[in-house]
């Protein structure tokens, strides 16, 4: 069944409005979630702040095939592996001859 043009115009405006309102509300919800999570992170910040000063790494030769102990701050395992591979490649040395103490994301 054909739709009157006035109804079509109203439906189009209403539809666009609904999408906007829906996503603005969603934006508010996500912003709220972000604020809550950031606040929670802030509350627990003193605890993880301690390891910001890298603990003294165990000295001595690394075991063959191992990159030694490493501490990661805000860096995922995959990113860390990629970074270590890049450094090893740039230096032209095998990964197990290098010792990485920590990798930290600079913000």
């Amino acid at each position, binding site marked *: 069944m054909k739709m009157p043009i006035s109804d079509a115009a109203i439906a189009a405006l209403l539809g666009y409005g609904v999408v906007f309102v*829906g996503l603005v*509300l969603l934006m508010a919800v996500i912003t709220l979630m972000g604020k809550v999570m950031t606040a929670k992170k802030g509350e627990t910040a003193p605890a993880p702040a301690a390891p910001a000063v890298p603990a003294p790494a165990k000295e001595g030769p690394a075991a063959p095939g191992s990159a030694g102990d490493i501490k990661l701050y805000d860096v995922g395992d995959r990113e860390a592996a990629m970074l270590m591979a890049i450094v090893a490649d740039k230096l032209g040395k095998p990964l197990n001859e290098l010792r990485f103490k920590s990798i930290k994301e600079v913000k």
Partner: protein
Amino acid sequence: MDILGTLSGLVMDSGFAGFFADGGWKNLIMIALAFVLLYFGIVKKFEPLLLVGIAFGVLLTNIPGGGLYHMPMWDAYVNESAYDPVNDVALYETVDDGIRQIPIEEYLARLTCTAEEKAEVEEKIIEHLSFTDIIHHGGLLDILYIGVKAGLYPCLIFIGIGAMTDFGPLIASPSSLLLGAAAQLGVFLAMFGAILLGFTGPESGAIGIIGGADGPTAILTAMMLAPHLLGPIAIAAYSYMALIPMIQKPLMRALTSEEERKVKMKQARPVSKAEKIIFPILVATFVILLIPSTAPLIGCLMFGNLLRETGVTDRLSDTAQNALMNIVTLFLGISVGATTVASRFLSWETIKIVILGVVAFCFSTIGGLLVGKLMYKLSGGKINPLIGSAGVSAVPMAARVSQDVGRETDPNNFLLMHAMGPNVAGVIGSAIAAGFLIQLFG
């Protein structure tokens, strides 16, 4: 043995003879169209994963005598009319105010065949088609098409898309959602345009959603609102998605100044793992409560994303991203292509849909860019308006286009991650637009 009779029968039964039957030339045109689409998919690499499947479906369904897809059977299913599997006829006719069911007795009286043949037809007529009847009487593509008709494939694809999408940029910058909303402008303008061109409300809604630049959403909406237009809508949607760089770049250059394009955006805040896990649960709950008809799309999208982010369902996430996605894409492409039966596809309606599709894409891009410019002004020049055009879904192609146009002006400007926010917001936006249209016209 009657050798001549046998040979004559072989010739008459061949597909070649079908080209000389009434309207057979249309099949030739559709086969040529299938070759063109295959060329675009294989040589030009335009959305090849789906376009090659769609093109091959177009080819298979238009070879006379193949019997892989029966349009009258699906017409009978949609219009809830009886179906004659012997002659492949749906027992209804279109009249001024809709459709009229043809009584079986009237239909049999119209047949010009012997009484014995009529009795056989009467015995086999199915009054109410079910999926079981379709499996029993249909061809291979009819059976695969059940997945489209049941709304299964688009939803399964959305699980895969969710599993492949990182919503981090959107969580870090929730204002991206405004751009995702703005870029749905084309959906509603094209819907209005379709009504002006004489389409019905549900048909217009299905055509408008092409502007959402999201294939599975377009297919699901078309299937629910105007299944007879599914073929042209799917082909238009995927063709234009492949042509996004050609459609968007001139509009982006025309609507933004060099100063605006040069804006370097500040790095977004890091998003914690917990936020990424909570996000899909929160969005699914909130959006479905807001517009319940978005449940199939948003539910599956967010379920897929949850599998990706939990960290405890890596195997399921991997399957959703790869095996499941590939299998469903394979079935979806070929079965959607099968709906492009020559007698229905070659019409003015298809040409109008193709034109409305490009209008929808252009206005969606313009809507995103204009709100991007507004955000540029309001933020004191901190937001690059080029990321607005990425608000049309088409992930990640539209975000890449923002990056490309940004780098044309300043090779050191990296907009990709900033454009990913509006880009994934566009997926949610087009799902909400589809939900609204389904609720309004469904």
